[in-house]
């Protein structure tokens, strides 16, 4: 799961006009770019940043759902949630590997995350406060992620596109398991339905923010689109998500917490769509910049896992060294 909303990409590049033109021709011809191919520095930098943010989002994203694994209300739900959070770990792993093909190591990327230098999707800086959040995250957050990730399967950079194909294939159950949780709660007791509404109330706006700033305010979007790292604009994807999700909320009998939400025939080039109220971008930037309620705790948890695990990683490396040495000795004897 992830967002698009790449934060602070810097696509500036200093290659010659001829080099850039030739590169653009390859992109326009839908040729995939592979790691060792010549590429503009800005393209490489943008990808490292975007894939890194994407990977970090998966890894940090394990925490809010991980918060409920040990409190899952049935063995079936526990298994499904555990498998889902495990998938997210796997997806982080695939993505780190995709970024590593560009010459940055997982350790480097991890250090950037832990030092607060690297960003990740700000949705994960919101707390999960009741069991319905597990439903709402699957339904809304994974739903928003799918909108973004499907076009990424056609991204111009080969390793990223291949990782995303695998991710999308595996994630197809995530949204469904989330919606099923919501459905069960909405058909359950009044308290359960209240839980579901509460989760929607808290997560709706952050889910919309996952698509990133409005196109007009999205400084580096254009270059990313030109290089086909990104295929749709933030607003296009957000609209698609809203149009798909509102009827699903209605089916659940839940109220989308937006008094300005209404059908508008003129949207989507005359096909119609849901017009929505203003997004609170001040809140978005506040959370991105580190002042969400969970930002500090998320990084602290990741840092603790990394630091606590240092002796384990060292032991494995030391053992590998010893084994290699013994092998050499045996061969010499």
């Amino acid at each position, binding site marked *: 799961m992830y967002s698009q909303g790449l934060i602070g990409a810097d696509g500036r590049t200093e290659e010659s006009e001829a080099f850039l033109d030739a590169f653009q021709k390859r992109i326009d011809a839908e040729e995939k770019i*592979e790691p*060792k*191919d*010549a590429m503009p520095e800005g393209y490489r930098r943008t990808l490292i940043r975007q894939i890194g943010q994407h990977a970090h989002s998966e890894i940090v994203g394990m925490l809010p759902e991980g918060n409920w694994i040990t409190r899952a209300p049935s063995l079936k739900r526990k298994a499904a949630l555990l498998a889902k959070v*495990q998938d997210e770990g*796997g997806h982080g*792993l*695939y993505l780190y*590997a995709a970024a*590593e093909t560009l010459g940055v*190591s*997982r*350790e480097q990327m991890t*250090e950037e995350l*832990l030092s607060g230098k690297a960003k990740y999707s700000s949705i994960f800086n919101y707390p999960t406060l009741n069991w319905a959040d597990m439903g709402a995250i699957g339904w809304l957050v994974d739903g928003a992620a799918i909108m973004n990730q499907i076009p990424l399967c056609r991204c111009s950079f080969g390793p990223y596109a291949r*990782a995303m194909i*695998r991710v999308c294939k*595996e994630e197809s159950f995530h949204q469904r398991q989330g919606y099923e949780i919501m459905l069960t709660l909405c058909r359950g007791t009044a308290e359960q339905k209240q839980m579901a509404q509460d989760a929607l109330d808290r997560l709706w706006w952050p889910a919309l923010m996952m698509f990133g700033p409005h196109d007009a305010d999205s400084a580096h979007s254009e270059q990313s689109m030109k290089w086909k790292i990104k295929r749709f604009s933030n607003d296009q994807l957000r609209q698609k998500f809203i149009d798909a999700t509102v009827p699903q909320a209605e089916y659940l009998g839940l109220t989308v917490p937006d008094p300005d939400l209404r059908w508008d025939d003129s949207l989507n080039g005359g096909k119609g769509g849901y017009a929505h109220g203003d997004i609170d971008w001040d809140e978005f930037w506040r959370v991105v910049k580190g002042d969400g309620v969970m930002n500090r705790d998320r990084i602290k948890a990741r840092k603790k896992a990394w630091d606590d695990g*240092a002796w384990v*990683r*060292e032991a*494995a*490396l030391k*053992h*590998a060294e010893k*084994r290699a040495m013994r092998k050499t000795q045996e061969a010499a004897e």
Partner: protein
Amino acid sequence: MTEQETPLWEVFIRPRNGLAHRHVGSVHAADEVLALDAARDVYTRRGEGNSIWVVRSDAIAASDPDHADETFDPTADKIYRHPTFYEIPEDVGHM
């Protein structure tokens, strides 16, 4: 906080007997035994295969894309290597 990096391994999986091992991704592991376990735990969670190879990424020698022209283009005009280059009358039947 610079620590020694855990090596990267490329993972190849054979989906079933009769097919070739195919590159599926990579894992980090200190040695080949842990790399095989990691490959199993990461890349075969949905019954994707019945055999795994791992090879250290830094043990792979790769052709240079900057030399791709001289490496691969010279075969382009050797069309006599392909069956369709040869004309056989239809009456002869499938060959």
